[in-house]
């Protein structure tokens, strides 16, 4: 992406990166990325974290900096390497380690050493802990199960959604809709990664129906097939002020109109998009059908469907959203038109960034003007961004 620009990489004012699972070796991945991208030693960079909204938060923060007139050119991204998520030691084991080091003489050390218990060495999978809400002690899949239940979404509905998502993704790939958006990665060992291996052209409602529930066995509805996949990924967008556009003769693709964040009980975090997007639409006096294209991050098939159902739910819209009644039905042909995280994966820090980028590209392709990219956020939040294309 930097190669495509008519300005050198050190022309940026700053770099903002969303990342959820920051690894111990690189505590500020934004700065690491800026340096490794050859953007110069003087490039300031910081990392933002709001779980699954991090990649969108980086755009939002950059947008506000530019709005304030502080910066003119910002590289905003999201990155996640869930394959690097660590195994962590239990607190009890950490305590034992500490006592070992604190022991001053040999006997004390021996005594401390004798305190070891086998359970200390049973590792905790960091990733699993990260995907479990600490307040309500539910993992993310369970929050989707709750929504499926509340809005009467069946296993079949969720599978059907997932199968369609996969088909849309396969079609988009075949039609080269991701050209210039999805870049292949090259391994040091010569391996070429030009496809997300979560893309499954052979997924059908029938094949998905065979999978066992992933979180709540045996009767749960959320399976590995109708959920997003845990993957590595990164996404960047460039934000420029009007001055920068003029200075470098840039061709803007879209304009950020506004953004909004919303929050609710962590156990139903999947409704975050409804709260945040509604806030946005109300602020701009837009009805649901004024939004021509939607990207709702596919954390779970059932969760996306729950959002659609919530806007179509009279009581929910009236009592929760303060609307006069049901907002309406988002037509499926304006929602996640090229698939989403179910096939492409959900690298948590990157997804919020990717859906904004893809929304822009999809709107440009389909000749649409106004769209919203929005995601649910573990911990009970949602983020939404209102975008208009620039012709």
């Amino acid at each position, binding site marked *: 992406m930097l*190669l495509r620009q008519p300005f050198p990489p050190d022309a940026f004012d700053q770099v903002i990166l969303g990342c959820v699972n920051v690894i111990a070796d690189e505590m500020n991945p934004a700065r690491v990325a800026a340096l490794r991208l050859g953007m110069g*030693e003087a490039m300031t960079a910081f990392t933002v974290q709001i779980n699954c909204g991090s990649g969108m938060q980086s755009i939002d923060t950059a947008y506000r900096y530019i709005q304030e007139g502080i910066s003119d050119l910002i590289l905003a991204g999201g990155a996640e390497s869930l394959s690097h998520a660590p195994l962590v030691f239990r607190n009890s084991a950490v305590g034992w380690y500490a006592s070992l080091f604190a022991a001053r003489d040999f006997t004390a050390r021996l005594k401390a050493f004798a305190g070891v218990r086998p359970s200390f060495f049973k590792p905790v999978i960091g990733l699993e802990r990260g995907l479990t809400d600490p307040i309500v002690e539910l993992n993310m899949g369970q929050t989707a199960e709750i929504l499926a239940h509340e809005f009467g979404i069946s296993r079949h509905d969720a599978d059907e959604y997932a199968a369609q998502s996969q088909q849309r993704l396969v079609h988009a790939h075949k039609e080269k809709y991701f050209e210039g958006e999805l870049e292949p990665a*090259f391994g*040091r*060992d*010569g391996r*070429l990664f030009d496809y997300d291996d979560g893309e499954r052209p052979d997924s059908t409602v029938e094949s998905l129906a065979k999978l066992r529930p992933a979180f709540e066995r045996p009767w749960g509805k959320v399976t590995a097939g109708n959920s997003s996949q845990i993957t590595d990924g990164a996404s960047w967008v460039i934000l420029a002020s009007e001055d920068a556009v003029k200075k470098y003769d840039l061709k803007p693709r879209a304009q950020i109109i506004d953004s909004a964040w919303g929050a609710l009980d962590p156990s139903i975090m999947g409704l975050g998009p409804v709260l945040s997007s509604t806030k946005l639409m109300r602020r701009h006096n837009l009805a649901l059908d004024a939004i021509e294209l939607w990207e709702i991050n596919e954390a779970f098939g059932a969760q996306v469907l729950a959002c659609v159902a919530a806007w179509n739910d009279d009581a929910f819209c009236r009592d929760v959203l303060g609307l006069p009644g049901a907002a309406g039905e988002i037509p499926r042909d304006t929602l996640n038109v090229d698939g989403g995280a179910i096939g492409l994966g959900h690298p948590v820090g990157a997804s919020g960034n990717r859906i904004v980028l893809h929304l822009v590209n999809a709107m440009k392709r389909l000749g649409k003007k106004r769209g919203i990219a929005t995601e649910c956020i573990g911990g009970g939040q949602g983020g939404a961004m209102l975008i208009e294309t620039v012709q």
Partner: protein
Amino acid sequence: MATPLQVLKPRDLELGPLSGLIASDAGTTAESAGGEITVDTLRRKVQAIALPPSPWKHWRLARDEDGVAWLVIDKQGASANTLSEDVIHELGDVLTQLENDPPKLVVIRSAKPSGFIAGADVGEFRGSAAPTDIEARLQGAHDIVDRLDRLPVPTVAVIHGYCLGGGLEVALACDYRIAVEDARLGFPEVLLGLHPGLGGTVRLPRLINPIEAMTTMLTGRTLRARRAKSLGLVDAVIPERHVRAAVADVAARKFKTSRASTSVTVFNSAPARALLAARMRRETKAKAAPEHYPAPYALIDLWETHGGDPRAQQKAEIASFARLIVGSTAQNLVRVFFLREKMKGLTDGEWRGRRVHVIGAGAMGGDIAAWCAWNGFTVSLGDMNAEAIASAIKRASELYRKIGHKSTDIRDALDRLVPDLRGDGIRSADLVIEAVPEKLELKQRIYAAAEQQMRGDAILATNTSSIALEQLRTGLRRPERFLGLHFFNPVSRMQLVEVVSHDAVAPEVLAAANAFLGRIDRLPTPVRSAPGFLVNRALMPYMMEAFILLDQGAPKETIDAAAERFGMPMGPIELADEVGLDICLSVAEHLRQTLKPSADGRDMFERPLPDIPQWLQDKVAKGELGRKTGKGLYEWKNGKAIKKPPEIPHPPQPAPGAQADADHLAEMTDRLILPMIDACVACLRQRVVGDEETVDGAMIFGTGFAPFRGGPLHYARARGFSNVVTALEQLAGKYGERFRPDPGWSQLA
């Protein structure tokens, strides 16, 4: 504006009371080169402090508050310190002062950012002198270094950067050696056909394990600071910021050393020396023939004979060094050293590019891109085929792992090597290098597309090895910014690059290309666009003659041995396999097509290139391409050709006696080597290359032409031009017109 580190870095060098001293050097070119801020210019600007004048040209001496004398070498008018005669002579004066008024401690260090002392002044080795004169001069230098050794106070050499040859010998005469982390120590004399000559052969095997000492001197290899520490060659490795504290510890006698005393005693005993020397001779013989490279054998003799008696060894070292330096091997290798300096000198021009774009991720393009990225450029590697880029990245990371010492260096180089499937990098590139298959229309199409996107001041270079640049440039909008950069395979090891000009190229573009090559540590050879340029043009008759010999029944091992006996690093048959028979075939076909007498019969070659044997085409068709396919003319295993021991060849007409055999082998060598030299003469006559030195340098660094012979033309000159011409004419009479000497011989002085 400068970066903070650029301003602060020059403050690093710890010179005690002389800190802040501005190194005297001629390196003002760095500043004039586009006004870019370098450490050197900042040194001058930021840290100019007033120091009293020194009574010496090259040395400075000052005592600090603890009574430690800081002796700083700062060779006048040079960017690196070398031990010229007057530098050593002055050291004698300095020592007199120190002997008369001994300080508590003497610290020797360099004021040059480039390092401690880079060795002797090689220029003083040139030319012939009587060995006895040389011995007398050497004895004088030895006396001075011995006085340093005998100073009644402790002496410490603080070493940063290069500490080679004579520089290391000075350091060895000190009581302690402290290395800064970037220090590189070694005795490269053997690479110049010499061995250490300032007491190094005496002191090193008595300081560290003699096996390691001899290996270091026999290989000429440079040791990194950590390795030097583990051998006991240096006593500590520290960052620059701890120099003052370390020196204070030496002064306070708190400095600890650990040296290899047991192995020194054991392996220096006479029986051990006899045993080890025999082994060393065996191992050396596998690498260098004694008749071509006498120095390593002289070094082994010195140690074996005198390893028990330092005084006798010192005397013998002086005599041996004097003998070697007047010999032809050392003189020719010194010549090669200066040929390299001359080629490096071409890279001094100005070019401030930072971005390279390579079109084509094939074997050459990928490797060129990888090499440029390793040397600090941000390189976009353009290819529409992602698989090709992937395998180029794989080769790059394998190369980096081999040559890189730090994982961060490897990571950074890979970060700078950017895959570019759509050629987006062309727009921001300062230099675009095209390395696509050798097809005229394909290249022209690529240029047309690239030129649309390239910046007006960017340079377009082709890696073509065969297509005339005059043809390639037709259709270019900016032919003046187009030239050839002909790299050789493997790019990371072949130092030579032919810089190919044509009738429309601008001189500043050629200068910029040379400067670029300097920045990627390659040696430029300016050539004019002509079939095969210089190197391939000269190599082809050599390889074709080998094929003819093969067809006439000579065993391939014998043919290779005939060339290796002359001093070629690899025989022509093995070379053909190494290069790839497909490449050989295409170059040969191309040269046969283009090397025809021109219509007026004047400018092109009058002699035909031999016919291409049918079996070569068959082998290529069968996919037996040489090393890369595991089978060519040889079978290859683990990257090595499987060879039988060479037979003594039987001459076509039976002629009895050993002398006839030897004559026959000599004739075979002439049949291989002389056409190569003849082609060089033709290239000179046709002004493909500028001068004899360029030819010799290019052939040595581009083909490995026996370096101890000083290059093909130097060899012909030494043998006698008329002798060579006669030999060629005799061969022409016997074997055909292809040996007819080029008219250019008569133009050579």
